[in-house]
């Protein structure tokens, strides 16, 4: 018996393609023996001079039961034998049921081995790298030619099955070539779900440089991967990819986006600082710079003001306690804040409105509006007055508002300014019609009456009489005007 086996081994080694006659020995050979034979046959399939295979010891593997190894090897023998000789009807039919049992575990095992590898471009590469146990089932598949095997689909079929929502294992596609075909098929199907699935697979199994390189010429797939990385928050890989593609502006923006996830202000500030140097477009660069400066400024102001507030020394903070911290507020809100709490400060301090205006080049209009709103809220009418007063070189004072006095009136009115204050500005509205409208609306009777007087509009003036209180000074005024003209 042992002699016969030895003979047979020799027989196997000697030639790859000679069919052996199974029939004779079938009854007497135990299954174990078959498995041994199968191992030998394996060697033929792989390269004859691949020495790695010598290390294989089937029984020594932590396999558990011996029957497992039988199945494993038996099925591999099936495939190999069948691939070689179609006349082996008996052998193949007796094992026909086995591959199915095997398929349930094989791939998950494989997977563990796979991650250790950066990538493998072809089967032979792979073989020299990993232990046989891991790829033994794989071999069975890649070399096998039987088409009726239940999950052995072409890339095209695989994609189509996936589109129909069926589960397919992609691990079978091992060569770069195969994987790319798979990807191209997926892209052709336009189904993002499948494309993404294939991409996840590729991402896991291909070396980065190769993946990036191949995606560069596959724009659709590329977009999907970028989307996927964004969605899952794999920031580092995303940035690498964008950098590889030389999409610098996107790199910058996507890195900048990160700051939103940073809660700690100090860290956020640091992060923004690091963003300044990123390759944004010229316009955006200045915005990012401003963003950083603003936050830096806010941190200083916040620390200072919180101290003031808790100390309870400053009247303004006692009277109007702050509703929220100023951190991460937009620029205009910050300006409002500083107009509210730090209006009279010298330009040198960080929190003074004029300093903010200068640093961030806030346009006059914007500044006026914000300052006005803040001071009106505090009912600091003198400040409001000062805001619009300009002295010309002769020393005359003149009122000017780049935003238009009708807007000033509206803002003041919203802050419940008294009529005396309001009418001063209503009077300054240039357009007569608007002035009359505003005057009537906000009951600035004097202004309305004077305007009608200037217009010499007796009818309107008479009509206006019903809008003022009976017996009031305004009514008298109207009467006297009517009588005098």
């Amino acid at each position, binding site marked *: 018996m042992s002699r016969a086996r030895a003979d047979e081994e020799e027989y196997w080694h000697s030639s790859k393609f000679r069919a052996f006659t199974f029939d004779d020995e079938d009854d007497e050979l135990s299954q174990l023996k078959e498995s041994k034979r199968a191992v030998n046959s394996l060697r033929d399939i792989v390269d004859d001079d691949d020495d790695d295979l010598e290390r294989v010891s089937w029984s020594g593997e932590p396999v558990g039961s011996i029957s497992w190894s039988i199945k494993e090897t038996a099925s591999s023998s099936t495939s190999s034998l069948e691939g070689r000789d179609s006349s082996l009807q008996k052998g193949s039919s007796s094992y026909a049921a086995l591959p199915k049992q095997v398929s349930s575990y094989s791939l998950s095992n494989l997977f563990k081995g796979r991650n250790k590898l950066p990538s493998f471009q072809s089967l032979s590469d792979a073989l020299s790298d990993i232990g046989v146990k891991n790829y033994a089932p794989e071999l069975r598949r890649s070399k096998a030619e039987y088409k009726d095997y239940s999950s052995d689909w072409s890339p095209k079929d695989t994609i189509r099955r996936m589109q129909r929502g069926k589960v397919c294992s992609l691990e079978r596609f091992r060569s770069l070539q195969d994987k790319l075909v798979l990807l191209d098929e997926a892209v052709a199907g*336009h189904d993002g779900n499948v494309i993404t699935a294939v991409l996840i697979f590729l991402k896991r199994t291909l070396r980065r440089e190769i993946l990036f390189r191949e995606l560069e010429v596959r724009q659709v797939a590329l977009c999907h991967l970028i989307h996927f990385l964004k969605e899952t928050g794999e920031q580092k890989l995303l940035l690498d990819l964008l950098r590889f593609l030389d999409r610098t502006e996107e790199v910058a923006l996507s890195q900048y986006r990160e700051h939103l996830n940073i809660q700690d202000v100090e860290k956020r500030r640091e992060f923004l600082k690091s963003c300044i140097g990123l390759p944004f477009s010229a316009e955006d660069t200045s915005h990012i710079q401003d*963003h950083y400066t603003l936050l830096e400024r806010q941190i200083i102001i916040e620390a200072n003001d919180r101290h003031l507030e808790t100390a309870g020394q400053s009247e303004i903070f006692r009277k109007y306690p702050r509703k929220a911290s100023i951190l991460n507020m937009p620029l205009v809100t910050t300006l409002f804040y500083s107009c509210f709490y730090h209006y009279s400060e010298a330009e040198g301090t960080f929190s003074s409105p004029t300093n903010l205006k200068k640093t961030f080049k806030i346009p006059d209009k914007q500044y006026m509006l914000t300052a006005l709103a803040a001071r009106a809220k505090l009912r600091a009418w003198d400040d409001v007055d000062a805001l619009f007063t300009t002295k010309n070189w002769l020393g005359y004072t003149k009122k000017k508002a780049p935003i238009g006095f009708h807007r000033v009136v509206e803002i003041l009115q919203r802050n419940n300014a008294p009529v005396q204050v309001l009418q001063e500005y209503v009077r300054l509205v240039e357009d007569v019609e608007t002035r009359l409208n505003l005057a009537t609306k906000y009951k600035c009777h004097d202004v309305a009456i004077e305007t009608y007087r200037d217009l010499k509009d007796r009818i309107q003036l008479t009509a206006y009489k019903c809008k003022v209180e009976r017996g009031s000074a305004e009514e008298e005024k109207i009467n006297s005007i009517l009588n005098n003209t």
Partner: protein
Amino acid sequence: LQEHEVEKMFTLKPGRLPPADVKNVIFFVRPRLELMDIITDNVLKEDRGRSPQRDFHILFVPRRSLLCEQWLKEQGVLGSFIHREQYSLDLIPFDGDLLSMESESAFKECYLESDQTSLYHAAKGLMTLQALYGTIPQIFGKGECARHVANMMIRMKREFPGSQNSIFPVFDTLLLLDRNVDLLTPLATQLTYEGLIDEIYGIQNTYVKLPPEKFAPKKQGEGGKDLPTEPKKLQLNSAEELYAEIRDKNFNAVGSVLSKKAKIISAAFEERHHAKTVGEIKQFVSQLPHMQAARSSLANHTSIAELIKDITTSEDFFDNLTVEQEFMSGIDTDKVNNYIEDCIAQKHPLIKILRLVCLQSVCNSGLKQKVLDHYKREILQTYGYEHILTLNNLEKAGLLKPQTSGRNNYPTIRKTLRLWMDDVNEQNPNDISYVYSGYAPLSVRLAQLLARPGWRSIEEVLKMLPGPHFEERQQLPTGLQKKRQQGENRVTLVFFLGGVTYAEIAALRFLSQMEDGGTEYVIATTKLINGTTWIKSLMEKLEPAPF
């Protein structure tokens, strides 16, 4: 559902699942990662210490996402699900003539991320539709995405030769339109009744939530004391007779219809006084339920109309509309607009600003660099620098861009397609421009011109709009080719890829009803949108404000 022994239904929210004495829990979800996180949370919190363990199942609508499953796996809960299946729901019927896929992010995915999954679903939906209503012999399209969908349809047909069905085709033509062919229309404020309801209150899946004050039931005695605090929820669709009549009208024409209806109904109620014989009374009583329904529907819509009127008559609405109309008729689109500046200064909602700025940009084929930079600076300074990301998205989608070619194509497009009509009849419209009180939606104009006289006449303009235009034919077996009877209308299915507004739907319905139109329209889309929801879908998700 009760029939199938479904105990309770819950909306998805993080945390523990509400207690219920059931064994099986089924999640019905869209395949989105945020939702997966919620489910993970549910499952993880659930598993702890429950003696009769629950079984979890998950149903993806419209389909299983491998990405989501992967995600669940990473969270370590994939194994908790016994069944993972999909419920392929592509197109959801909204009304007799309206189908929607309800995928909010379709536009963003297609144009920002070049993710064509939604297009794939659209194509699948169309295949299903064809399986039910027959192969559509003619396909027209304009735009990149339209081209893709058509290609996919043709491919799918080739791949499943068995799908050749023998159903007599209902649709004669399919028109696929990319949203980015017409970026302008959704930005403008819709002025139809339904459009305004959507603009102001937002219609979600045909339901609208309204402030309750106006709907307080008039009770004797303690009036106004116990106002319902829950918003009033109303379903809006054409099943409601009155709504079907007024939904597509210009809002200015709604008032008169309502008052006319009111008169008719009160006249009908008056009739009971004249009912003399028993037979007459019986007839009256038999009509009562119908009349009562009509009356409550009238009451509802009068209240809604009042609510809307409060807003449309406000100064701000008027100013906003004036600016929009100026832009659309091509006035002063090339300089910084005062009203927009004012709105920024007053911190109006950011979306409103973005809508106006984008509108200006689209109507000017892009803004001058200086103007664009000015707006950008103002927006960032007022609303926060982080919005730089949103602005960037809008630029990518083509909504906001610098004028590059130096030429403004919009006037040509406007003139050729007659997008701006000066004499609009809002009460008895004679042109689709009534839906925006002057502006005729470009997309609908394209559909109209396709039916008559055909796109060949506007070749030049089509070239100015983005994306290719094309025509495909699907062969029908000879037995199924339609012999059109004299006077019979052709039916066109218009598919808006990336969303459609209620005003556009109204315009198409108007075309269907035109006597000499000869074409009826059925509308399908990826999502019903308005300018606000649309822009929102393009905005970068920002962290919620800390307070």
